[in-house]
């Protein structure tokens, strides 16, 4: 399978995001990337948009639902939101949407900072493997993988996607 190039996906994602925000009359959204891949995609997206807005960084390690099975992520880092969440329109950005559990964790964390006016979800890839009713508002590409396949994003520059196969 050929994976798309992030650099080619970003311009149409930027255009789709602008359309989405305009339709909802959102003029000054706050941008938040999910560590680590989501932060890279968010930085690239802001660059494509020519938007110098400060980027919030979310580390969802403390909010994951698999703590009992997988334990604490050993490289947990602080979340950094350089703006208020209360009453703001947020654009939440992640690299790959798979089960939707990361997004659930991110939403839980965001609401501990305050009550946002809205959250728009942007993902570079949607892998059609959702286990929760969570769907992106803007997506670069949608693809379906075999059960033993994963996609890995490398970055921050250049952003590249790589297909990995796990031997069972």
């Amino acid at each position: 399978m050929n994976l798309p190039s992030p650099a080619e996906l970003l311009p149409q994602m930027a255009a789709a995001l602008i359309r989405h925000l305009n339709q909802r009359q959102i003029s000054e959204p706050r941008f938040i990337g999910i560590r680590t891949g989501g932060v890279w995609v968010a930085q690239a997206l802001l660059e494509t948009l020519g938007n110098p807005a400060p980027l919030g960084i979310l580390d969802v390690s403390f909010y994951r639902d698999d703590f009992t099975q997988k334990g604490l992520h050993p490289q947990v880092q602080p979340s950094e939101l350089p703006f208020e969440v209360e009453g703001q329109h947020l654009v939440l950005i992640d690299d790959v949407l798979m089960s939707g559990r990361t997004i659930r964790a991110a939403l839980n964390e965001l609401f501990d900072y305050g009550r946002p006016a809205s959250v728009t979800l942007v993902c570079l890839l949607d892998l059609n493997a959702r286990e929760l009713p969570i769907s992106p508002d803007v997506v670069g590409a949608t693809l379906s993988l075999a059960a033993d396949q994963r996609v890995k994003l490398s970055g921050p520059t250049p952003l590249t996607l790589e297909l990995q196969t796990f031997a069972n």
Partner: protein
Amino acid sequence: MTPIDAPRPLQLNDQGQLRHFLTLDGLPRELLTEILDTADSFLEVGARAVKKVPLLRGKTVCNVFFENSTRTRTTFELAAQRLSADVITLNVSTSSTSKGESLFDTLRNLEAMAADIFVVRHADSGAAHFIAEHVCPNLAIINGGDGRHAHPTQGMLDMLTIRRHKGGFEHLSVAIVGDILHSRVARSNMLALKTLGCPDIRVIAPKTLLPVGIEQYGVSVYSDMAAGLKDVDVVIMLRLQRERMSGGLLPSEGEFYRLFGLTEQRLKLAKPDALVMHPGPINRGVEIESAVADGPQSVILNQVTYGIAVRMAVLSMAMSGQNAQRQLNQEAEESN
């Protein structure tokens, strides 16, 4: 049957992750750094509108305190609550131990209430170790101070304080001053500083308040404040533990203050930006002058704040390590 492995350190699981937190002795530098990094992330949580994360939701943390404590007990309670755990605190002097129940039975009863983590403070050195080894090996046991032996979370919160204010340990001179003999904080601090690569660790104390064999910690010993404080980056003052002294160790508190009290005048011997630390409770005018304790170089209250974050880190890491061990055991059982 699988062969029995060589005994691994009691505090770690088969993957080398923390499962109990009993002492800093023998813990590798990477693990101490991981605790500090995790605590840094929890500090950020403490600055939010909602100071709580769901990590230990549905878990029960039992604080079992056989010895008085204010700071350690309350910050462990807050830490557990901020991790969304259910928390009970037992001050054993006011509970059934006074009706004759043994330590063993008290803990087994608490275990039957489905506790997941015990935080234990006890006047006897080795109490937490005993519980982890013989009473409740499948629960995460956290040492909240045992006798003169260890106070590892205090040690780590002191390290977090130093790292946040000084950036690291590699070029620092750190002086630990006062009643080293009775101080589990001093022992934990010496071990942590050594492991984290601090090149110049000094202890300053009268000879009667130094333990035998202090040199094994790799520290230099001073009995004179003027020489010991010269150009240090950090001064850690200790409380004079009169309640543990059987008399004869000190002429008087006044004499001790005159020779070893940290006054504004003496602090000038240290570097101008030297940090002043104290594990609390402070005895003003016994080991430290009020002007120093409340002065611009003092980070004594920051230590309390950092203590919550360090305790959150240790609670979640030990729980995580115990969970992982349980899974490993299950998998081993299934494959047999």
